């Protein structure tokens, strides 16, 4: 079992800190490249949602990220103290729309849901919690 935490202000400039956090995790817990990429994408999309929806003008949300691997299952938890916001309520993008009609809004959450085994949102007292789980394939896959 391996577990790591990081805490950052909900500001776009912190994305690089989160990418480094994941890279450090991967150097300890060997996971397939595709799985690592899925988590990098999920964390970026979830974090940018907090940056855009979870930080009212007068204050910046605090974002706590934890990643753990237990018995071949990776669990990523993103918590923030911003206003209630459930990203899973965002409308699903129409992925068969043509070039002129296509919109990107909601695509990040859509990708996250498609690529993870399980995504769950909870409002815990004054915090939003997004939990994402994916079973890790064999490293040589």
């Amino acid at each position: 079992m391996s577990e790591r935490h990081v805490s950052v202000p909900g500001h776009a400039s912190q994305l690089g800190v989160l990418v480094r956090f994941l890279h450090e995790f991967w150097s300890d817990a060997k996971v397939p490249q595709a799985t690592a990429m899925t988590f990098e994408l999920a964390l970026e999309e979830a974090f940018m949602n907090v940056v855009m929806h979870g930080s009212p003008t007068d204050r910046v949300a605090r974002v706590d990220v934890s990643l753990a691997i237990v018995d071949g299952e990776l669990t990523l938890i993103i918590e923030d103290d911003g206003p209630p916001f459930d990203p899973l309520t965002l409308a699903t993008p129409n992925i068969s729309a043509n070039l002129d009609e296509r919109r990107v809004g909601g695509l990040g959450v859509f990708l996250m849901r498609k690529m993870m085994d399980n995504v769950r949102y909870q409002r815990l007292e004054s915090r939003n919690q997004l939990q994402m789980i994916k079973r890790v394939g064999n490293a040589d896959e």
Partner: protein
Amino acid sequence: MHTVLESVGKITLVSPRGRLDFGSAADFQAQIEGAMTGAGTAPVGVLIDCAGLDYVSSAGLRVFLIAARAAKRAGIAFGVCDLKPSVREVFEISGFRELMPVHADRPQALAQMLK
């Protein structure tokens, strides 16, 4: 991330390298816009060669979408090629493979675009 621009005949090649995420999307968008409107005459086509692209998020997809749309409006051929498996997966799930021409590699893309 950094982006290399080069010309092959009347096609402008845009080669992003590294991670195309929220942090690098705006710069990449500016590079593509420059490639389309650049100094002098507009190119016949713009090809995004993704051989060096390791990662793309929805912020990066947005740039591909805007570029494909701008090219269509300007009458410029547009395509992407040489997607790595991780980038290909994101293109497939998001429906972007159907949204714009995705070629296997650079020679095949150039042959198609110069037809």
